[in-house]
């Protein structure tokens, strides 16, 4: 694995973890839509896009997309999917610490199974 691939993967894992956590934080701060109907949903989305955390999370995810393309270009496409698995695992730890979510044993076991599954799908 070349240095470029390692850097791309590091940005992919860290960037998408931080991006998604920032977006979740922003969406939690926005609150729930009043109803699941088109008009309340549009109002809710309008409120959400005004949140800096949501915009920050989205732009970090945009950077990650560029890194995925970069990783694929340098010939490590399969590693992108394994990176997603690592991001799931890393993100779960971040969520416990930053978003104060209670991740119980069943959820941890589920996340680990999903990580292994994603890695196997990527390697297959």
């Amino acid at each position: 694995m070349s240095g470029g691939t390692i850097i791309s993967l590091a940005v992919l894992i860290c960037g998408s973890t931080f991006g998604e956590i920032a977006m979740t934080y922003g969406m939690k701060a926005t609150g729930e839509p009043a109803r699941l109907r088109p008009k309340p949903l549009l109002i809710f989305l309008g409120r959400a896009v005004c949140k800096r955390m949501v915009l920050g999370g989205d732009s970090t995810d945009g950077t990650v997309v560029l890194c995925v393309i970069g990783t694929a270009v340098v010939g490590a496409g399969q590693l992108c999917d394994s990176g997603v698995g690592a991001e799931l695992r890393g993100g779960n730890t971040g969520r416990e610490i930053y978003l104060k979510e209670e991740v119980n044993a069943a959820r941890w076991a589920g996340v680990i199974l999903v990580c292994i599954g994603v890695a196997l799908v990527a390697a297959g």
Partner: protein
Amino acid sequence: MASEKRLRIKTLVMVLAMVVCANAGDLLLKRGMTDIGAVAITASGVSHAFWMTVTSPTIWAGIILLIGFMVSYMTVLSWADYSYVMPAERLEYAILTLLAVVFFHENVTSKRWVGVLLICLGVLLVGQTKPRTTESAALQKVTA
């Protein structure tokens, strides 16, 4: 208890909407780009591909479905835990593999099938937990 059941159903419906929109959107993009054919990396090749892309109804349908994915994703995050939504969203790997077999007749190795099975088991385990373990901002304001 009833509100928890309602929350669980609401979350599952939104996660299902996410998975369906993401999978159908990806498939339509793939179909649309396959119809356009290989893009020549030259100025005229890229501009021709760009024109073919913006005039393709299949690609527009894919884009609309992916916007639907983004809207349902943002909506479900406003009430459910991210550690609940994220693994459930990975169900798309399993569904995408099935769709690739059905629509594109792709060969799937046994290793990949085992991966799909593990993802399904993992999602099932995560689905047994509570969708929300923290209070949303709106609830916090009311209780403060």
